[in-house]
Every structure is written in C-alpha cells, then in structure tokens.
C-alpha cells in the first residue's frame, strides 16, 4: 500500500493558504495595535478591561495558526509516525482553555464590581493639546478594535471552509464576536457618561459570559477532537459528509460484500480504516490497490486511509 506524503496540499489550495497566512499576519499585527491603543485609553471601566482581555485572547488563534501551519505539514518521522497534524489540535485546546479561564476570572471581577457598587471614574484626556473627556478617547479606541475585526472575520470564513481549518474558523468567529463586544463596550462608556455607573459592570458581566461560552464550546470540541470523534464539518455543526462518500464508493465495488469505516480527524487531515468482507479474494492485491487510490482521490484531506480485508467486521 502507498505511504502518502503528509505535507502535500492540492495545488489549487496553495493560493488560499497563502492568503490565509497573510490575513493571520495582518490579524496578529492588528490585534497588537489594538492592545496598545486600548491600553493607552484604558481607564477604570470594568467593561473596557474585559474587552481588553478579550482582545488579548484574539492573538491566540492567529499565532497558533501561524505556528501550526509551520509544523503540521512536516513529514512523518519514525518518532512521530502519524505526522504532526495534531499540533493544530493542541494549539486549539490551549487557546480555548485560556478563553475559559480568563472569561471566568472576568466574570467574578464583574460580579464584584456590581455587588460592591464600584463607580468607574473617567476624567480628562489631552489629545494634541486639546482637553477632552477620556470617554471619547476610549470610544475611538474601541471603534479601532471593532470595525477592522469585522472585515477580517468576514474575509477568513470562506478560506477556513476551503482549507478545512478549524483554528482559522475559530479565529474568524472570534473576530465576529469582537465586533459585537466592542460595540457593547462603547455603549457601556456612553452609559457611564449618562451617570449609569451600574451599566458598565452589567455589560462586562454579559461580555465575560460570552467569553466563557466561547471557551466552553471550543474546549469541548478540542477534547472531542483529541478523543477521535467522527469527522465534523468545519463549522462543527454536522457530521462530515466525507464518511458517507467513502462508504458509498467502497460499497459500490462489485467485489465488496460488507464494509465498516472508521475515520478520525487530525488537524486538517483525515485518517481511518475500512474493514472489508470480500465476495471473492481473486486478484485481491490489485483490487485493494485500485480501491485505495480511488478513495484517496475523493478528497485531498484523506491522506492515510487503510483498507483491510477481514473475515468478520469489528464491533
């Protein structure tokens, strides 16, 4: 049986990958600029602090994407015979755990601020010699943290689907969430200006709640991935139709009587086995060779699919 190279990506996906890398570099530098701008405008607002922490987490996905795209396409070695694809899942696991922990800390911060009636003070800022209310400066910083985010997220979604990259998908999702978070934070600054000091802590609670939910959802998925859950679509909602496609192909072969398929995802790549009960075993090597080649041709993500002829299907 052939031993396919792990680093191969179909030529038509090279361009989207390059574009995705460029977008992630752009995102990483953009998030850094947001962090600096927000830090300079950061005052006593609890919602502002929550938004800042969330922006910092926005670095996790681009950095893990850029790091893992370097590693995952390396060839398998005797030490790591299945290749490096799972590096992507590990990056995903740590990122989502960070999300969950920070969300929880911010939630308790918000509860404390609300319970003890902390009133955020926002005073004067001097911009180029002009004294203005610092709240306006914060709003400007927040607009910088939202509008570009929205467009970045929108540009990444189709690439994530094409490349079947979950880290990229999660990142696009984060960018979309940032847009809503930033807007909510702008409202909380406006509310502080109206004298509604409680609105700030309340909004920060809602925001930290959404970080917690995001973290939980992603952590769960990362754990499922590591536990070899059956392949899912990149948006993680449905079973990946590819399993059905492979089953259809193998069942349609005239020498196959029964077949059982097991597949798992490692990063972008699909691994798996098909156990086949053959009608007859004449010329079986050539038939298996042909079936294996056909299966691998179905989709670029099928890299290491093993066909085994057995007497009895496993449980």
């Amino acid at each position: 049986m052939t031993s396919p190279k792990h680093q191969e990506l179909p030529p038509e996906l090279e361009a989207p990958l390059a574009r995705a890398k460029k977008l992630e570099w752009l995102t990483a530098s953009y998030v850094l600029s947001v962090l600096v701008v927000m830090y300079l405008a950061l005052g006593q607002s609890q919602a502002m602090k929550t938004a800042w922490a969330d922006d910092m987490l926005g670095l996790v996905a681009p950095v893990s994407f850029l790091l893992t795209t370097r590693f995952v396409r390396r060839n398998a070695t005797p030490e790591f015979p299945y290749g490096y694809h799972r590096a992507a899942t590990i990056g995903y696991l740590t990122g989502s755990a960070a999300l969950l922990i920070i969300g929880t800390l911010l939630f308790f911060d918000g509860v404390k601020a609300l319970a003890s009636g902390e009133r955020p003070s926002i005073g004067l800022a001097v911009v180029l010699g002009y004294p203005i209310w610092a709240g306006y400066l914060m709003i400007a910083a927040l607009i910088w943290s939202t509008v570009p985010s929205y467009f970045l997220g929108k540009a990444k979604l189709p690439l994530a689907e094409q490349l079947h990259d979950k880290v990229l998908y999660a990142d696009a999702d984060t960018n979309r969430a940032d847009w809503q978070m930033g807007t909510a934070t702008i409202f909380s600054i406006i509310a502080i200006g109206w004298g509604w000091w409680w609105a700030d802590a309340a909004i920060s609670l809602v925001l930290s709640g959404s970080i917690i939910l995001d973290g939980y959802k992603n952590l769960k998925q990362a754990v499922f991935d590591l536990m070899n859950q059956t392949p899912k679509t990149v948006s993680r909602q449905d079973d990946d139709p590819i399993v059905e496609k492979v089953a259809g192909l193998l069942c349609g072969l005239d020498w196959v009587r029964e077949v059982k398929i097991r597949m798992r995802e490692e990063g972008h790549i699909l691994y798996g086995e098909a156990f086949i009960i053959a009608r007859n075993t004449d010329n079986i090597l050539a038939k298996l060779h042909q079936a294996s080649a056909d299966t691998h041709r179905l989709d670029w993500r099928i890299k290491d699919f093993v066909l085994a002829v057995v007497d009895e299907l496993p449980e």
Partner: protein
Amino acid sequence: MKLVLISSSFLLALVGGLLGLLAGNSHYPKDPNDTLKRVQHGTLRVGYTRAEPWVVPGLQEPQGIEPALVRSLAQRLGARIEWVGGTEQHLFEALKAHELDLLIAGTTDESPWKTEVGLTRPYVETTVYVGAAPGTTLIASLKGQTVAVPLGTDIGHFVRQHDAQPAYRAQLPGGAPLAAGYEWQLQSWGYRRLNNLELKKENHVLAVPPGENAWLLALETFLYQHQAQVHQLLR
C-alpha cells in the same frame, strides 16, 4: 445577511448616539450624584491632611500649594469652602462614601486608594534629585557616597539603590555635601542639581468621590488650565 443588518443597525445607533453626545456636550458626562451641580454656587466640602509643602495646616485654614488651588477653584465655581481636617484613612473613607467633594493630602497617582475613589490626572510632576553643596566637586555616580535625606520618607531607600548611604536629618540640608530634595528645595538651598541622579518621581493628583465624572472633568479641566499657577506656587 442577518449579520450585516444587525451590524449596520449597531453602527447607525452608534453614530446617532455620538452625534447626540457631541450636540449636548455641556451636560455630558453626568455625575450620578450631581456633585458638580451641587457645589456650583453652593458649598465645597474639602478634606485635608498635613502633607508639606502641598498642604500646610494653618491657624484657621490650611495653606500650601493645594489649598491655594482649591481657593481659586472655589472662586471660579462661586462656591464656599468647608474645610474638614482629619487623618488620611478617615478622609478617604468619607470621600468614597460621597461625604466629601474633594480631598487634598499631597496624594500621588501611587495612592493605594486609586481604585476606590476618583483621582485626577497628574497636575504636576515633581522629582527628588541629589544636590551638591556649593563648592563641592561634581560626581557622576553615588556609589560609596553619603547623602543627607529627610527622616520619615522613602528617599533613603532610593539612595541605597544607588549603592550610597543615607544620612537621616530632621533639618535639611544641614551643611551636608550631598543632600536629597525636590528641585525647588535644592534651588532655595543653593545646591547644584545633579541631573543624572534622579531618585524619585511623584505625580501629584487630587481625589474626588468615585464615578462623579462631570465633577472630575471640571476639576481636571481647571487644573489643566492652571498649570502655570502650579509652577508659580512651587517656587
């Protein structure tokens, strides 16, 4: 499509909100407890505690840099000042509970109360330098030197960080060849300021009740416009 709709309505609300804010600028931001409205042509309750030269207790009223600033502020607001002396702890607690409108205590932005109350942005920055007595030779490093420092401050700590020995004095400079002091103190002693031997920076602020943002903004704007007066008072 739905997302675009939601986002564009967000954006519209935002732009509308901002325009509304800019139009009604004079009443924005607001105080949850209406401090600014109350003190204008009313009574300004000012807590003070001894912190020379910022606050110097006087016979009837406190003197010094910060009381002088408060008096011009009160004049500007048409407010009568009610001076309340006390310990820093009690006064900050009262300020946090909105029982005072302003607190002057030579406070800096390092104050541990900074998260509990509202602090203005620094209205003046002062630096403690090492100065050399007239006629002494200039030095580049403090290593192994002895520097006269005031008792009851943390200046001695910063002197030790320069590998020098502090000599504690109740009265400065007391004829010491090297002494630590603020710029204006060195000037009045006739000591030469050693610019490369900066010991400590202090950013001076005033304290207001938490979250009274119109009042905070009015006070900060006043301080910003009176920077020249502050520097005059320091001399």
